[in-house]
């Protein structure tokens, strides 16, 4: 077990290094730099002298290998650099947004599980009946709807609906308050993006629950259980579901990891100051240091989630041994 773990962790190192090199080179290939964007606010005018000064300040006049070395060696001392846009430490910029992103990801997961598991079960049990078709249509639609479009429709719907019925248009707050400071305001802001993303997420999970359960229901031991005359509900709950959970847990974990850094478009729609919005801003502002560290964070989450999923597999299904 521990040998396997060490091997997996060692294998993650080339992945992380590769990602670091990739993001480093990609960013340098993008024309334009943070100094031009910053200094050309009015009328596109910027003194070359001022731009050079700004570049020097940010260490962008250094050679590429040296810049890459600064980036990588920073991990040894946990000095992840400063945002080129705000001048604040990258760790600070990420930390203040992490709570929001984490909370939305958790809430969307909860929404997804609440919808997906029951629907998936019904759909599998009633395979090829009209109920199954309705559930599958609902699920496929969830994958097909662009979640940002759904977000726009939700906000618009809220504004129109509240004005019609209460006379005063209401929309979710646009500035974040921690759940621990003001839970009501916090929830009234985050429930909507959680629903908009949770729907897509639940659609993926519903399909997975259905197909995993269908596969298990064909297994011999389920047939045996049925043959023994056990109640259908007992067969499903006690025997089938437990074994069908594996791929469902996998997909939920992978989606969760994706949500941590992938809410790029939804955060724009709901004006959420999270990791995804920071991502877009840092890329558009050519804030190299910040973008690099954000990519590394997302890659790290991805790698760790995959590891956890594999360990979960082993734990849930004793048949699988680490090879």
């Amino acid at each position, binding site marked *: 077990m521990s040998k396997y773990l060490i091997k997996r962790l060692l294998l993650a190192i080339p992945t992380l290094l590769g990602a670091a090199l990739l993001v480093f080179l990609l960013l340098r290939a993008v024309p*334009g730099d943070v100094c031009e964007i910053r200094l050309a*606010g009015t009328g596109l005018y910027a003194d070359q002298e001022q731009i050079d*000064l700004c570049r020097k300040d940010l260490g962008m006049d250094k050679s590429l290998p040296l810049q890459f070395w600064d980036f990588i060696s920073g991990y040894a001392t946990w000095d992840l650099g400063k945002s080129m846009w705000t001048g*604040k430490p990258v760790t600070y910029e990420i930390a203040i947004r992490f709570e929001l992103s984490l909370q939305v990801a958790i809430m969307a997961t909860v929404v997804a599980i609440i919808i997906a598991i029951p629907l998936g079960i019904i759909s599998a049990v009633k395979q090829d009946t009209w109920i199954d078709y309705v559930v599958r249509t609902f699920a496929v639609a969830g994958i097909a709807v662009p979640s940002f479009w759904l977000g726009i429709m939700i906000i618009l719907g809220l504004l129109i609906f509240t004005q019609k019925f209460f006379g005063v248009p209401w929309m979710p707050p646009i500035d974040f308050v921690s759940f621990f400071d003001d839970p009501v305001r916090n929830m009234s802001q985050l429930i909507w993006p959680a629903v908009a993303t949770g729907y897509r997420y639940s659609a993926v999970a519903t399909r997975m629950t259905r197909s995993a359960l269908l596969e298990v229901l064909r297994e011999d031991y389920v047939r045996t259980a049925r043959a023994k005359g056990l109640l259908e509900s007992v067969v499903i709950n006690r025997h089938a579901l437990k074994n069908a959970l594996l791929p469902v847990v996998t997909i939920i974990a992978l989606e969760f990891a994706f949500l941590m850094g992938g809410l790029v478009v939804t955060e724009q729609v709901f004006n959420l100051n999270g990791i995804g919005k920071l991502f877009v801003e840092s890329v558009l502002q050519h804030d190299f240091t910040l973008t690099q560290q954000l990519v590394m964070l997302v890659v790290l989450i991805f790698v760790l989630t995959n590891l956890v999923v594999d360990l979960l597999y082993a734990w849930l299904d004793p048949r699988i041994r680490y090879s």
Partner: protein
Amino acid sequence: MMRFTPKLAAAAMVGASLGLAGPALAQTPKPGGVLNFVVGSTIPSYDGHRETTFGMIHPIRPLYSLLIRVNPENPSSPTDFVCDLCVGDLPKPTEDGTKYTFKIREGVKFHDGTPLTSADVKATYDRIIFPPEGVPSARKAFFTMVDSVTAPDDFTVEFKLKYPSGAFIPALATPFNFVYSKKDLDTHGHEWHTKNVNGTGPFMFVQHQPGAYVEGKRNPNYHFKGQPYLDGYKAIAAPKMAVRLQAIRGDRAAIEFRGFPPKARDDLVSALGDQITVQESDWNCVLMATPNQKVKPFDDPRVRKALTLSVDRWGGSKYLSEIAIVKTVGGVVFPNHPLAASETELLRLAGYGKDIEASRAEARKLLEEAGKAGMSFELHNRGVDQPYKVVGTWLIDQWAKAGLDVQQRVQPTGPFYDTLRKKKDFEVSIDFNCQSVINPLADVSKFLGSAGNNYGQYDDPVLEDLFSKMQRAGSEAEQYNLMRRYENRALHEAAHEMITLWWYKINPHRSYVKGWKIAPSHYLNQHLDNVWLDQ
């Protein structure tokens, strides 16, 4: 330039105030309340001297004072400036227009309690005009006429100019010229102000959540007694236009200071009726199309002229102003400024005639002569919807009507600048001029081939000569005539640049926001000391 004939100045003021519902003057301001507003950009640093974005002006400007500012009671006038940290009327220049003496207000305190003296003002302007080696100053070039800044006593500051210049006072009033404390600069150095705030403004810094909001609270020791009326403000970052619009609709914010498209205004008004007040103004920003004269066939003036001839500006003004933040047909000078061309004068320029069919026929003829009829090219544009992409899409259609086949290449802001400044591989690009304080004598330098912000890659001695004559012209009449010749050269004869339409600023806001008056720039009149809430 500051001595306009009364007739011209009055015309300018009337022309500019177009508010649908003018701010009520009769009411007495009520103190209290917190103003929430949305800002469509983020804050790079708090240091006004080095930054250029409105994203930092809107949240940070209320924390600082300026030496002089645009008159908050008459911000629509492009020529009305008043004292902020100085006292009395704006000083008249002496010594043949080369010396300005300012009396500094006494009893003003920085937020940390340090009293303000002329030494602080001198230190501020020294840093802006003559920054020490390695210290950034974004608007150093605005002050090339300044020879020295001195503080003969604790409450007097003198600016000595190398030559008399009408561009000096407007440059002084630039809203980025925050007055810092000399003590801070001396003890903390030049980086301190990027992350810390210590000003004399109407509000004091409370906190900044990067990417989210800035909070300010009332400064009880503000130098204008009784002001500010607000207890505080919260500037909420909302990069998407739709969110900003919805925020006002759902009352998460009361106002947005940059500007909304016309349709957004109509939607807000139809949904909320008299709970929304709309203020509108011409805007000191203009989009142009710049042909790259190093790329064939744009070195041919006939081709450039044909491009500008094909564009129906008057029709565009009518229709485009319903969907984009542009409206007014104008030449090189801000439309309401005394130095701007009259309509008759505009009509003589290529592409400004009212008979568009005749213009397009002429355009086709010119293209025929140049052997380029029906040519195709690429329009380089910036990836911002309002108004860049809207105007770009409109231009392409205008050109299509003259038989030209134009594709659009849109780039995000960073690569867009890079193409203009370094790669220079575009054929025709959207280009813009957007300034804070209206200062035509300085602003029109944009059209000079030698200017740092000109991307047409041409060299026109005639234009350079007219410009330098204009800078030294003694009377406004002379300035006006030279400006017409300059405009004719840049837009008509040589057709170096083609101006599309001037921007039009529309600020629909919650009616309970009182005291704020629209200015012709989103950088101006943003100190919020005279704003109050009628709730």
